[in-house]
Each structure stands twice: as C-alpha cells, then as structure tokens.
C-alpha cells in the first residue's frame, strides 16, 4: 500500500516537473476543464445539442486550458483568442452581426397574420425577471441581471447583455443559455403538462391562414425598430440588427444578400463566436460554486418562462367564450428558442389529439418570443447598463 502511495506521489511529482505546474491547484482544474470541453464536444456531436456553438466552445475550452507555456500564445494579451474577443465579443459586434443572419432566417408571416399572438411572447419573458429577483439574493445586481437574461433563451442576446454589463460569469451564462435551448424538448413538456389539464391540451384552434401583403412584410421590421427604439432605447441596436436582417429578406430585391446573411455570415460569425467566448472558460473563472448556481438559475428561468406563457394563456381563457379559447400550450412557445419550442408544443398537441395541429399558432408565438426576448434584453440594459 505504501509502495503504491509512493508510486502515485512520484507520478504527481513527474507531472509537476514536466508541466511546471502545481498538481492540485493547477493540473487538476486543467484536467476538469478538458473534461468539460470534451463533454461539450460530445453533446454537440453525439446528442446534436446546439452543435454550431457547443462544438467550437468545447474545443475552445480545451484550447484556453492548455498548460501555461502553450496558453501564452492563445489567450495572452496579443494571443489569437484575446484579439478575437476584443474585436468581436467585448464590443458586442459578433452577436449583433449574428442577429442580421437570424433576422434574415425568420419568416414573421405566422405572426403578421395573427398579431395578437405576440402577447404570449411578452408573457413568456417572465422567467427573466423572476430569475433577476432570485439571482439578486446571491449576486450583485448587475451580475443578477446578466444571469437573468439566460431566460431570453437566445444566445446572441445573452452574450450581448452579459458583455455590455461586464459580467465575470459570461462563460457560465453562455453555456447555460445554449445548453437549455438544446434541452427545450426535455425541460418544457413536464412544465406544460403540470400546468394544464388534458381537456385544455385538447383545445383546438382554428387557423385561418390569412395572407400578408408584401408591404406589411417590408414595413414590419422598420416599424418594430422605430417602436423599440422610442420606447426602449437600449433595445434599439439589438432589434435594429435583427430587423435589418429581416428587411433584407423581405424586400425582394436583395436575395443574394439575404442568402449570404442567412448562411455565410451566420456560419462565419458562429464559428468565431463559439471559439472566442471560450476565452472565459478558463479553470480559474469557470470552476467556482457560482457556476453551478448560474446553471441552476438558468433552468429556473426556462421553467418560469414556460409557466408564464402557459398561465397567461389560461388567464386569457377565463374571459374568452368557448370556441375562441387559446390552447394554453401555445403560451409556452413564447420563449425564444426557435423553432424547437413551437415543435414541442405541436408534438404535445398531437399526443393528446392527433387531429390538433398547433404548429402555425405555436410558430407565430415562437417568433414573437424572439422579438420579445430582444426587447427584454433592451429593458435589462435600460435598467442596469451604463
């Protein structure tokens, strides 16, 4: 036994000598971060969980946690990742450019044909503000606000707001935001089932499929940008870039730009964003008890978002006559995670009644959640930004 212990100590001392690092305080945390990086890569590839971001982040996590001698060239002052971070994340450029791509991808048609559904997008942001309250019990208010924005269920908004507020936990916030977005099909159904009766889940909603004029489609991004800019000035830049992307899509004369924004721009920024945000995934910043709490608070935000949308629909139903009632499940699609949340609601509807097609309603609510979450991000910046 003693020989085994001595052998172990010898191995440790060899590690320490070769790497020039202390085993307990430096090598073990480094190995843990490699394991976390590996886990993110595994989840991205094997489980198809937000692979576009989790894979670059996982690899970046390994990269920034290489032993000091190597890391010096990666995250040192003039290292590649630090340069990219300063060029695109700390000044919020990457998330904004990504918003152009997202705006170009979104078809607001289902929302425009039934605008009143947008109210559920607003209700489903409740998780952000509930989490703000809970997080404020453990963190300074600016950090609590950065953590709360995980509930926006929108990666670029989380990155933008957390960067703008100078959060030291941005790595954990981004991991939580993207992980829970990928876990929407697991997180939402139990919450929805808990808050609704079988009868409510079977409510059918007529879809009238009104067509939307091209003029409305073109004016929508312009009008929304103006309204958001006037009422919530801090959301102007976020909404503005999202709507700019959508205007490129809908104008009908910039098809090649729209295609570039949807594919090339979005892909390019995603590659750089993923590996760059990993800069905050070094062991010292990430391996803290606060990280576990942030992951927990992120889950709370998603659950309360879902509950907010469902309960709001149930509240409205109290005042609506039979035949006009909403299926409360569509409220859950008000979280931004697009298009997973609308698919989850549609699938749950079909489980209860195989002739109940909620997809178009849920999609309308889901895209409105995208807009509302960005407005919520703007609200947070209005309150806590510089």
């Amino acid at each position: 036994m003693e020989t085994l212990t001595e052998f172990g100590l010898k191995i440790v001392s060899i590690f320490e000598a070769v790497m020039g690092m202390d085993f307990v305080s430096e090598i073990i945390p480094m190995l843990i971060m490699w394991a976390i990086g590996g886990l993110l890569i595994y989840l991205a590839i094997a489980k198809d969980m937000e692979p576009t971001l989790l894979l670059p982040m996982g690899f970046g996590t390994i990269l920034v946690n290489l032993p000091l001698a190597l890391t010096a060239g990666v995250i040192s002052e003039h290292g590649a990742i630090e340069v990219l971070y300063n060029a695109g994340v700390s000044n919020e450029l990457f998330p904004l450019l990504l918003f152009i791509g997202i705006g170009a991808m979104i078809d607001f048609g289902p929302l425009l044909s039934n605008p009143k559904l947008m109210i559920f997008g607003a209700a489903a942001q409740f998780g952000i503000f509930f989490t703000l309250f809970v997080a404020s019990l453990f963190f300074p208010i600016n950090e609590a606000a950065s953590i709360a924005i995980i509930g926006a269920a929108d990666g670029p908004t989380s990155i933008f707001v957390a960067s703008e507020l100078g959060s030291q936990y941005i790595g954990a916030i981004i991991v939580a935001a993207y992980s829970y977005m990928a876990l929407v099909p697991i997180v939402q159904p139990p919450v929805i089932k808990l808050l609704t009766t079988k009868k409510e889940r079977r409510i059918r909603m007529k879809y009238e499929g009104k067509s939307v004029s091209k003029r409305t489609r073109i004016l929508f991004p312009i009008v929304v940008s103006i309204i958001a800019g006037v009422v919530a000035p801090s959301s102007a830049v976020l909404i503005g870039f999202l709507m700019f992307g959508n205007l490129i899509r809908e104008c009908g004369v910039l098809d090649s730009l729209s295609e570039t924004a949807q594919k090339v721009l979005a892909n390019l920024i995603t590659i750089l964003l993923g590996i760059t945000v990993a800069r905050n995934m070094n062991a010292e910043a990430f391996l803290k008890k606060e990280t576990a709490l942030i992951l927990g608070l992120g889950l709370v935000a998603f659950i309360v978002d879902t509950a907010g949308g469902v309960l709001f629909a149930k509240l409205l139903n109290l005042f609506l006559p039979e035949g006009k009632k909403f299926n409360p499940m569509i409220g859950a699609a008000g979280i931004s995670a697009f298009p997973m949340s609308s698919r989850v609601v549609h699938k749950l509807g079909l489980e209860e009644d195989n002739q109940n097609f909620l997809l178009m309603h849920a999609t309308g609510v889901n895209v409105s959640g995208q807009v509302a979450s960005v407005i919520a991000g703007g609200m947070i910046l209005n309150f806590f930004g510089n």
Partner: protein
Amino acid sequence: MFNLFNTLSQVVTTQAAEKAMGLQFTTENIGEALMCAGAGMVGIFLVVGVIILSVSILNKAGSGKKKD
C-alpha cells in the same frame, strides 16, 4: 418583539443558505430587483402592445392590396 423575531429569522435564514451553498446571501438588492422586474414586464407588454396595434393597422391598410 416583532423586530427581534424578524431580525433573528433573517439571520437564521441567511446563515442556513450560506452554509448550504457556501455562497454569500444578501437581501439588499431585493427592492431594486422587484421594482425592475415589475417595470420590465410592464415595459415589454407596452412595447408588444404597440407593435400588435401597428401590425393590425398595417394589415388593415394592406388588405385589398396585392398579396404574396
């Protein structure tokens, strides 16, 4: 008496939370957080309400025009 109980319960709760999670527990930001939460939700409903109204007007104005 009530204040004493209040203070005592606050200390006990705070210590329990700190012990359980090893985290600093503070209630000093609650007021600000609650106020911002309320104002934030009102703000979102306000902005969304204006957008709904605007889209409805756009739809009305666009009806009868060429559809895509």
